[in-house]
């Protein structure tokens, strides 16, 4: 691979349209953000390190094609997103990981019986206008959700992040993890039901 031309001196090279083409500069300027992005999605420091490194090397190869019409970090994050999905795809197609994923998706949907909710659903008290002192502010609720997600099985967390943060649809997530979109829905439903329980939304019985 040929490195993009470097300008004289030690200053990072910037083209007429702006983008830097020195991966060490990218590492200094965006390393923390890229690493945090990868770590949240992969849940492993080693994998996050590998993903960021592969991203920077791929960016180096693609730097000539970077038109500078998006921010540098957005461009690098776009490359990293593909690296992360590739790593997830490889991870969940390994036999040991595929088994743990299947375990989370197997069986009937326990919340439904004959197509209807088995138990009456209620708005979480911490979100309800009638929640009083228990009502949480948005940022506080987001932190509680983040803490609850840390305690989730990894595959559940991965699927939620891909759906809600990355904006992937269930078919795309299914393709990445090597499962059907129906199984992804089961996992998403269970992940959210688990969050609902952890955040104090246990069902209290009664028909809908």
């Amino acid at each position, binding site marked *: *691979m*040929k*490195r993009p031309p470097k300008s004289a001196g030690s200053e990072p090279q910037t083209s007429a349209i702006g983008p830097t083409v020195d*991966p*060490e500069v990218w*590492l200094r300027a965006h*390393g*923390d*953000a890229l*690493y*945090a*992005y990868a770590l*949240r999605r992969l849940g492993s*420091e080693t994998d996050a*390190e590998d993903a*960021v*490194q592969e991203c*920077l*090397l791929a960016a*180096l190869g693609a730097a000539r094609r970077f038109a500078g019409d998006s921010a540098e970090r957005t461009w690098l994050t776009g490359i990293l997103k593909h690296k992360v999905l590739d790593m997830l795809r490889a991870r969940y197609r390994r036999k040991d990981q595929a088994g743990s994923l299947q375990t989370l998706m197997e069986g009937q*949907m326990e919340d*439904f019986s*004959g*197509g*209807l*909710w088995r138990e*009456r*659903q*209620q*708005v*979480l008290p911490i*979100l309800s206008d009638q929640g009083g002192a228990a009502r949480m502010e*948005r*940022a506080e*609720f*987001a*932190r*509680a*959700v*983040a803490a609850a*997600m840390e305690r989730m099985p990894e595959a559940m967390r991965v699927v*939620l*992040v891909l*759906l*809600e*943060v990355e*904006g992937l*649809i*269930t*078919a795309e997530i299914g393709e990445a993890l090597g499962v059907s*979109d*129906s199984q992804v*829905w089961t996992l*998403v*439903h269970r992940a*959210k039901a688990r*969050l*609902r329980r952890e*955040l104090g939304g246990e069902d209290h019985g009664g028909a*809908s």
Partner: protein
Amino acid sequence: MKRLLALPATVWYVLTLQCEEADRIRANFSDPATTRAQKVGEQMHSALCGSCRAARKTMREISDAVGDLEQHSPAQPMPDGVRERMAQRLREHSGHD
């Protein structure tokens, strides 16, 4: 005429939609494959079903919170050892070109 004939099937679908299917539609709302009839069905069903309405509100709040994750939870910086190792590999890679 063709549209009129198609109407009863759509109406039938909307009226008979159950909670489990409505929940599945909610998870796939942004999927281009989700039809208008499915979306209307989910909305009508949720308007009539207290449990689905409550589930929808809670799920939407959870979705928003997960979507805001990066904004509200502290990011873990790259450990120094990792940064140095990566910089070294990048230098080696560049040197071999």
